[in-house]
């Protein structure tokens, strides 16, 4: 937690709070996400990770501030936030099952097209879509309806959709949960590749995955930021150990 907030393209979150009927799911969070790093959000269930992301993407109301590219994100409607360059995936992969892989990517690419072009059918495959298909490794499945894809493939497709919509900030919610070991490795590679010029924030429980790929880790607990730093720093942090000690029995964290 050093000079990340000074990066000109960083997403700066200051004093962000979210409450449901008086219950503070997120309270007073300060965090900065900068491009070029794989930034992981970890923490026990109910720590407020997803709620934080929900607030940053307009799904729930939050107070405080979250600025990106000179824009205040809080208070904007989700689609406006997406248009500002901040995109996300969901815990349960949400793709359009009835549409093909190609169509999924194509409509995701649509926000950069003028509205009137919507009235026309797709002619050929846009370069960005082709590129994304290549990157997420689904080129061969492009004409398959997204509904038949395997769980991991759906997650990749969601990432691909973020790529074609050219999201500069990507929030990925438990992307590798339920993936096989090979798929995890591939996903990690993918994130590394696309993360060079983007801000990628991953919510994750799988500590092996975190250890293997995280540049920065932010630990949340009970709605607050508990610690932030490199994997090694976090593992050495006493507060984090304390929070997770009670949970080691569940096997979530084993150093």
């Amino acid at each position, binding site marked *: 937690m050093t000079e990340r907030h000074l990066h000109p393209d960083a997403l700066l979150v200051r004093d962000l709070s979210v409450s449901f009927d008086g219950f503070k799911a997120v309270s007073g969070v300060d965090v900065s996400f900068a491009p070029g790093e794989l930034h992981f959000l970890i923490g026990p269930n109910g720590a407020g990770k997803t709620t934080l992301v929900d607030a940053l993407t*307009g799904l729930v109301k939050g107070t405080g501030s979250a600025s990106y590219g000179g824009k205040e994100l809080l208070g904007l409607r*989700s689609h406006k936030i997406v248009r500002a360059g901040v995109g*996300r995936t969901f815990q349960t992969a949400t793709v359009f099952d009835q549409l093909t892989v190609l169509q999924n990517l194509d409509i995701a690419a649509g926000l950069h097209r003028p509205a009137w*072009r919507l009235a026309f059918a*797709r002619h050929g495959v846009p370069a960005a879509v082709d590129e994304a298909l290549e990157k997420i490794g689904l080129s061969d499945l492009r004409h398959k309806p997204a509904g038949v894809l395997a769980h991991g493939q759906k997650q990749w497709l969601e990432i691909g959709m973020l790529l074609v*919509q050219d999201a500069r900030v990507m929030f990925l919610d438990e992307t590798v949960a339920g993936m096989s070991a090979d798929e995890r490795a591939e996903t990690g590679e993918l994130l590394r590749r696309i993360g060079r010029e983007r801000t990628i924030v991953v919510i994750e429980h799988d500590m092996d995955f975190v250890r293997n790929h995280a540049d920065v880790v932010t630990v949340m607990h009970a709605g607050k930021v508990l610690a932030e730093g490199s994997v090694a720093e976090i593992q050495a942090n006493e507060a984090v150990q304390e929070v997770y000690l009670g949970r080691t029995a569940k096997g979530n964290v084993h150093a």
Partner: protein
Amino acid sequence: MTTKLKSFLPLLGIAALAIALLVVAPAVLSDLRLNNLAKYCCWAMVAVGIGLAWGRGGMLVMGQGVFFALGAYAMGMHMQLESVGDGGIPTFMILYDPLAPLPAFWEPFRSGAFTIAMIVVAPVVVASILGFAIFKRRVKGAYFAILTQALAVALATLISGTIKYTGGDTGLSGFTSFFGYTLDDPLNRRLIFTITATLLVGCLVVAWQLYRSRFGELLVATRDAEERVRFLGYDPANIKLVAFVVAAVMASIGGAMFVPIVGIMAPKSMDAAASIFFIAGVALGGRAALFGPVLGALAVGYGQSTLSEQWPGTWIYVLGLLFIVVTIALPGGIASLATRGAGLLARLRSSDRKAASA
């Protein structure tokens, strides 16, 4: 390349329907049956719109009668004024005050051009205002359905209750001419049929283009996961609004052509029951398929005419039973029979091949 060709395949279907309606039907049908078919075509236009809004967009529009009425009453008012001649007032108004001037909202409908413009503009304006409020506030599902139905009831009651200005429950009737052509002439009735059928084909082409366009994909996406669409950077409200407005315009055009064909327009033709009847055809035919709504509406219209000729008094049992059975047995409507049949055929063929190779 093949998929591209495939997307043009429905055009062949539309062409076939166009030939059936514009060439075959006038050649083989009597004036009576042609006029009946014209009536079904009007319902089919409404149905194409419902297919778009409901089948593709997931909005169960239970109040399309509202838009049907906009077009129908615009046309009805024009034809009524045309029939009474310059400076005249409709017969039903004479009773209350023979010397009263025409109500201000009637006056512009003396102009045919204004009438045609209103048939398109009125539903666009009304549907935009309504839809904007409804979709921005994220009213959907059953709420949306009941809300639109309430609007149809409200409008029907309003028309019934303003008998001095609208003819009330008895409606507008006694038309003699349609844009200068006498309605009595059989040739002119064929002309009206031709126009109606052409408009229906036009609606289908519009639907086909919308379905294959990126908008169509986005609409289906909105139907299946509305909130997810937001994270593609679109406001689903706007996408639904467009579909709703297009559906409204189609209903209005259907309503407008309905009037010269049946010769009377009353609230009964657009109230809650009528609006449900519009939906019935769509559900029967298959709401998400391109041809489902059209075929369903034509089938329900035809079914109603023939069944009631066959069994006056008891036909309603048959129609009611048909609704029940089709909804239970064929969730995708009649149109799904085609895909089911194709699937079965493919399975048979592949098993043939297996058998042959074995």
